């Protein structure tokens, strides 16, 4: 058909009812399990808060959107199992870039990110989430704030990214549980190992060049550079 073949391509699409788009407000496209959404402050299974007020998250934050002030735990009614707890915890979502560095920095897995990013504000003060809004509820689920668009099930995966990260990026820790339990969920299981996932999600004709090079050793790379 030459030049005119393109016309057939476009007319064949008509009336096929296949759609690459989602009618967004009515239905949502499924989110990847490691999407970075708004944060939650997690609690242990006994209800104690995980945050110890160490301010590492605030220190590592490249957008400087986290403000933490720690305080000593009251001896008769401790908030966290450690010596100190997060007395004030605020995140400014007009600044947050959802890089998850705070999650990596946190020594107690207190702060993690949910998959929810659909929220909006009408003034700047509302954009600052306070500790009351960030701490998970008594059922271990994030609090549903009135300006957030939620669908059922969206408050589940609140710590997937943290659990997917192997310590120091070492593959030997893959599949090993290295985190504490969460209120409402207990100790969550590890994600599937990477090669199992690859086998499930990639076709049989897929050639993984990166793995081959690893098997043959790094010497090839060195020679190539010299």
């Amino acid at each position: 058909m030459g030049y005119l073949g393109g016309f057939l391509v476009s007319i064949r699409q008509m009336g096929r009812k296949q759609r690459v788009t989602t009618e967004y407000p009515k239905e949502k496209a499924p989110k990847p399990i490691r999407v970075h959404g708004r944060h939650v402050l997690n609690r242990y299974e006994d209800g104690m808060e995980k945050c110890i007020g160490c301010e590492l998250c605030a220190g590592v934050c490249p957008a400087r959107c986290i403000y933490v002030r720690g305080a000593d735990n009251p001896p008769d009614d401790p908030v966290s199992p450690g010596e100190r707890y997060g007395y004030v915890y605020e995140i400014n979502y007009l600044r947050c870039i959802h890089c998850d560095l705070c999650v990596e920095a946190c020594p107690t897995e207190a702060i993690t990110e949910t998959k929810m990013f659909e929220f909006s504000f009408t003034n700047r003060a509302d954009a600052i989430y306070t500790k009351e809004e960030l701490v998970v509820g008594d059922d271990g689920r994030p609090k549903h704030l009135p300006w957030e668009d939620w669908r059922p099930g969206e408050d589940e995966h609140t710590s997937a990214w943290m659990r997917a990260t192997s310590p120091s990026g070492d593959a030997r820790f893959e599949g090993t549980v290295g985190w504490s339990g969460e209120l409402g969920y207990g100790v969550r299981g590890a994600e599937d190992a990477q090669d199992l996932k690859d086998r499930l999600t990639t076709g049989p004709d897929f050639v993984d060049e990166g793995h081959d090079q690893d098997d043959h050793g790094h010497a090839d790379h060195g020679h190539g550079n010299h």
Partner: protein
Amino acid sequence: MLGGDPLLSGNVDLAVVAIVLLKVVLIFVFLLVATMLMVWFERKVVGDMQNRVGPNLAGPFGILQTLADGIKFFFKEDLIPDRAERRMFILAPLLSVVPAFLLFSIVPFGGDFSNGNNGTVEIFGKETLLQLADPPIGILFALAMSSIAVYGVMLAGWSSGSKYPLLGSVRASAQMVSYEAALGLSVVAVVLVSGSLSTHDIVMSQAEAGWGFLPNWNLLLTGVVPFIVFLIASQAELNRPPFDLVEAEQELVGGFHTEYSSIRFALFFLAEFMNSVTMAAIIVTLFLGGPAGPAFIGPEWAWGIFWFLAKIVLFLFAFVWVRATLPRMRYDQLMDLGWKVLIPLSLGWVLLLAIIGVARDESWNPFVVIVASSAFFLTGWGLLRAAKTTSKARRLEGVID
């Protein structure tokens, strides 16, 4: 000015004025509604071809989306940039819209052309044509109006006092002026065959019986080539894809209307889609016999309108189809196509039609005519080709820029 309409040949009384006013209102409303539906139709069909849904929230199947957009535009802030040439900036959208409306006044949109009737209908006891005006200059008026629309685009870009609109409008004026030539030459072919400039007469000449089952359309009488040239040139004239360099979003932000907002932008938008509808109507009039067609049951004049609308919708769909298929041309490709292909082609074709016409009238020897004209056209084609290769070689050598 209103020319060949039998309505105006007698005394002009109140009924005549009423009929003319009625036609004006009818055309005005038709154009606005057709434009609204065209925008919706285009978005829906392009959406379907790109596996999207298209507008679907306002009204059934999203058909009121354009209306909603229009209402929104009215309430938007009307912004005039500080560096804009104020009077020209305000005038430019009107220069786009008014010709778009006027263009339709010469289009016969209905009438009874079946069984050798002359296309008139009777309203209030008066014989009249179903077209607002039938001036003797006819189709030249359409060309004039589409040329005036260039001023709207050009002045809009120039008066914005901003560089992207200026670039867009420079492209627009160059493009529209160069394609106007091809457009005009293919109209000449139609005029040669029909023997009249008046749009009513052009339709009348096509309403006669053709050969066998084939209709007597100019599409066939002129030998298809002028039709294809006109179709391509009209897309360029309308600034529609693949010739939409004027408003190439990726390069020029919004093109000539970048600085326009609110209802002034809406006017450009309206003019653009109205011109699409009108251009389809003109193509139908020139090449496909306009409202002419067989009448079956019911009133004959209604069949005229039906055929007219059916043919228009066919072309509007083709426009949208082209838009969904072809990527935008580069500027040099656009100019090459216009000057080196379409204009020589349509010019040669007009000469050919003229030779055939004269040869038939003077009853020359057909064999001599064929040999002489093919020798003539081969020489012309060879010269053009030689000129193109030489200039390309010199350009590559860097002799000329």
